[in-house]
């Protein structure tokens, strides 16, 4: 049972890290849109491309990290 608690603890910290990165690209960066705009249209870039690319990378990164956690505790389906 303690193994399960430790596994869930690690899963929860991964969730928090993921959600913090997510919140940064979903909300925080767009609050600074006017300062991102210079000779390059930074606000347009972040809302139209940057955030999306960050989400794609974040989702794949999350999936691989979570799989590693599952494997570490012998909880993955292949074990």
């Amino acid at each position, binding site marked *: 049972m303690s193994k*399960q608690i430790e*596994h*869930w603890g690690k*899963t929860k910290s*991964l*969730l928090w890290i*993921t*959600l913090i990165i*997510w919140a940064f*690209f*979903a*909300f925080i960066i*767009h*609050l600074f*849109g*006017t300062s*991102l*705009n210079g*000779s*390059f*249209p930074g*606000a*347009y*870039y972040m*809302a*139209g*491309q940057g*955030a*999306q*690319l960050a*989400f*794609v990378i*974040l*989702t*794949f990164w*999350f*999936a691989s990290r*979570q*799989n590693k956690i*599952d494997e570490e*505790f*012998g*909880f*993955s*389906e292949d*074990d």
Partner: protein
Amino acid sequence: MLKLGDNFISSLNKVYGLYTLGFLGFVILMAILEMAGVSNTIIGWLFVAFTVLIYALIGVLSRTMQSSQYYVAGREVPAVYNGMATAADWMSGASFIAMAGGIYLNGYPYMGFLVGWTGGYVLVASLIAPYLRKFGCYTVPDFIGTRYGGNLPRVCAVIILVVASFTYVTAQINGTGTVASRALQIPFELGVWIGLAGILFCSMLGGMRAVTWTQVAQYIVLIIAYLIPVFWMSNKLGYGLIPHLAQFDAVSRVQELEGLLGVKELLPTAEAQAEAGKLAALKVGINDASATAMANWKFFTLVLCMMAGTASLPHVLMRYFTTASVKAARQSVGWSLLFICLLYLTAPALATFTKLSLLDPTVATSIIGKSITEVSNLEWIQQWSNVGFLKMVDGNGDGILQVNEFFMRGDIVVLATPEMAGLPYVISGLVAAGGLAAAMSTADGLLLAIANALSHDLYYKVIDPKADTSRRLIVARVLLLFIGAAGAFVASLKLTSILGAVAWAFCFANSGLFFPLVLGVWWKRANKAGAVAGMIGGFGVGFWYLYMVQFGGMTPWYGIDGLRFGMIGMPVSLILMVVVSLMTEEPDQETQDMVDAIRVPKGKAVLAADH
């Protein structure tokens, strides 16, 4: 008769590779026919007929009488293909037809949709989908009903699912009607029923299995159709090979032109706007980032509502029930998002290049600054004014077209761009086929979500638990037929715009389902009373608020309008669920063990494979 066999899964790459080549070959054939002088109407017909026939064929070949095949495609869909199917399921008429137009007309604030409709997948991957896959449910109410116990939570979840998905599906059937009526030159109402017939052919016989494999086929058509015109325009306008990289110079140029042409200063006169009715003129800059606290708040709330809605819409979540494992479900979310982004990252580029083609006086296709008589003689202007999609009103009577005198519907940006930019008609046919694929694939998924919830959760689990498999599957199909017909009927009444209805569906889903789903996994203490209170309270208050703002004449609180009413429903749902759960008894040991079981991928699913 021919049927998809067991070796189908192992030869997917070959099958869809050939299909993609075949489709490209078909497009080239159409281009040759066009050069040979075949009329536009016939090319439009061929595009629609050919693609819809293929989808229907896949649907018929995937027919099944096994419940696990019908409800979850046998849980054997590889992560990448499920990603493609989810992308098609997800990208609706609103994404394909309306999004670029929305960015064109409403500029930066509208890009909140782009952020919200992609970032929601981070929540799907991290909070919900893999756990529901481990749970082994057939439908979303199946999870709510089993996790919280009893029929009441199940029925509440079914009601929310039906309201959210039905709102959404009428918008999609409306979309198929719009595209079909344009491409086939038939009345809108007839287009709606023809679209419905195609949708039912894809889903009736094979359920989720058929929908999965047609959605993959539809994704391939829609992404080709969306990308080709944008690549073409970027190169034709001389900005560069890859529009996604080239668009930023174009944005700077558009901003320059906005200043020169007075986009933000020249507003339509009241009389001109009255004459144009619901059509809109360009009034917002393309890159005007939120400068006020209110603008920031509106961007934030839109993003949040769309994200939480993404993570609670049943037709999206149920796609992850079809993967072979929990691990595959998680990866599949990444693939879905990647395939979605192929289109979403193109939408702003499309809006920008279209703007350039119309505004930039150095570009041959530009219309602003030219004489109105000259512009009215353009073929595409005539065609689209005939169907009421655009209008020119000479507000100051000088005979020259200014930005505040050109009114249009946002949808036109995607549908008419090939003609605007002077591309051959074959591209217009391709775009019509793509729009149809987008609307059909989403409608398929939604209709199936509704029919499955009613047949599995309401009929089988609540009304007649002794019904055998074949009876259940027949009930599911009859329901599909009735719901489809009801959706087509409502769509033919044209009650709301495509986008309005879609945003409502997201807020219905997040008000009622987001917290019961998330807390069901992440908070063991959440119990039946709390979940029921959260669902009824969140959904009920959200519904009431939408009604008051939209029809009751209430002034929206703090800018929370009909697109964002989840900002009211979600907090109510969360607070009620937590407070009521804490005030009532904690869930029994069996339920707590169930939650422990779904938190690890290893081990048997909570629900049996054939429940």
